[in-house]
């Protein structure tokens, strides 16, 4: 070996020895088995970008849904369930009751100014009344049993105690599950039977512009259903459809997906339901104490001709053309 080579060999050996001496212990100390592991803080930070995120892992038990380690999205749902919907419900329902009371005090009952004619015209036939009352009866019970879920523990539980409240809530739950189906049938029937009379048109715009006979004087012309009734019809059809879809997803858990989807449909169901309750309160008001002669339409199905002429002038003309309104001797005063 040449002297230069010796020196180079020594140097290399020295460097190697040094590297082992210095590097090896340092590496041993730096081994951090948690360097790549996920921490809860990282996961929660990631939630700021996507609050719906779930932390999924692998699991060896058969229930694969249990593989979700954490799902903090329940917090937003809890906020909705315990605060938002309580406020929305209270404001919408109590607000509507307040508006109706105020309206009754100011406007009073809408009287039939022309007085009764003594002659009637068929407004709703037996089948129409059946589907209306089927839907109505179901809706009232569904609304009460649904409101119990949100407001029951605040209003009813302190009054009747936990055992009685649980029994009531179990009954309400069953009623809600089973009455949902005739309710959906009623909504579908009403949609099919009444849609032809509920297509919005220019006459409805004029009806609203004239105050619909509710505010201001006189009754603007209307066909079978006036603008206000068309609003009720479409709200019931669209609201009923949303309640049906969301309700079916809730009644059959996990058909819609996972817990996040259940939370979403629960929010839809709750919001639409309280809006519908408020709308139907107004509908009940105007159909009973709010307007003279209105209840007959869904009661006996026969309304006074003067009532029909006042509120649905164009409809009466159409019916007369079809010969559905008996003319002749009956028109003469009975003297």
């Amino acid at each position, binding site marked *: 070996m040449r002297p230069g080579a010796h020196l180079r060999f020594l140097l290399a050996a020295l460097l190697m020895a040094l590297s082992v001496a210095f590097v090896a212990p340092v590496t041993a100390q730096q081994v951090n088995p948690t360097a790549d592991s996920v921490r809860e803080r990282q996961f929660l930070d990631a939630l700021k970008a996507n609050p719906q995120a779930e932390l999924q*892992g692998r699991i060896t038990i058969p*229930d694969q849904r249990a593989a979700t380690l*954490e*799902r903090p999205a*329940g917090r937003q749902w809890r906020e909705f369930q315990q605060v938002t919907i309580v406020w929305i419900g209270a404001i919408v329902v109590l607000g509507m009751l307040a508006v109706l009371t105020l309206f009754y005090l100011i406007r009073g009952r809408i009287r039939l100014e022309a007085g009764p004619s003594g002659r009637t015209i068929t407004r709703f036939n037996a089948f129409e009344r059946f589907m209306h009352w089927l839907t109505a009866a179901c809706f009232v019970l569904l609304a009460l049993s649904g409101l119990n879920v949100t407001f029951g523990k605040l209003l009813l539980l302190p009054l009747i105690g936990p055992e009685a409240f649980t029994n009531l809530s*179990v009954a309400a739950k069953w009623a809600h599950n089973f009455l949902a189906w005739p309710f959906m049938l009623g909504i579908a029937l009403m949609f099919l039977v009444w849609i032809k009379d509920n297509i919005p048109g220019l006459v409805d715009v004029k009806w609203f512009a004239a105050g619909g006979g509710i505010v201001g004087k006189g009754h603007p012309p209307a066909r079978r259903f006036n603008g206000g009734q068309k609003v009720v019809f479409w709200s019931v059809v669209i609201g009923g459809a949303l309640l049906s879809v969301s309700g079916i997803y809730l009644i*059959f858990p996990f058909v819609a997906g996972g817990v996040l989807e259940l939370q979403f449909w629960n929010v839809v169901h709750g919001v639409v339901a309280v809006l519908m309750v408020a709308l139907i309160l107004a509908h009940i008001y105007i159909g009973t104490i709010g307007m003279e002669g209105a209840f007959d339409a869904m009661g006996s199905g026969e309304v006074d001709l003067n009532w029909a002429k006042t509120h649905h002038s164009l409809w009466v003309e159409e019916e007369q053309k079809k010969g559905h309104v008996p003319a002749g001797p009956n028109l003469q005063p009975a003297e």
Partner: protein
Amino acid sequence: MARMKFLCDADRCIECNACVTACKNENEVPWGINRRRVVTINDGKPGERSVSMACMHCTDAPCMAVCPVDCFYNTADGVVLHNKDLCIGCGYCFYACPFGAPQYPKVGNFGTRGKMDKCTYCSGGPEVDLSPAEFQKYGSNRLAEGKLPLCAEMCSTKSLLAGDGEIIAQIYKERVVKRGYGSGAWGWQTAYKETIAI
């Protein structure tokens, strides 16, 4: 009074599932229900960790808040329990729980899945302590016997700790200081709104 908590030291968990089995056996939990489970995250990748998870007995528990019949209650030890006689099986606690703890004995539609079941921290329910009725509905009541939950008691690596929150946090801190690393107490930020500062 103690504030009972669970702490899973994920750097020690070997995913043996003994806690899962111990829980099922001790409480005679119905078929299909696992009050405790072991979830492996980043499976097969560097940094893979297994975490044993059950009801964390949260502070300000979401299940308790959303229950429409108010069937949940806190014990003096900070354990979150529920009354199966009042539960209507609606599933709301399951929607709200961040850990997927509430479970139902039957697979079915809304309202037909039976009474909710979850980890009781081995402390029974509202029935008389150690009565047959309590065992039948809620399982074991080891706390009444002066013992801790069996899952943690028989954890072979002592990964799963149960006991007073401050004491188990102290044990975990000492471990982390001694070995030089720790991937944190999973679920603590979510359940107790606190982390263990090291």
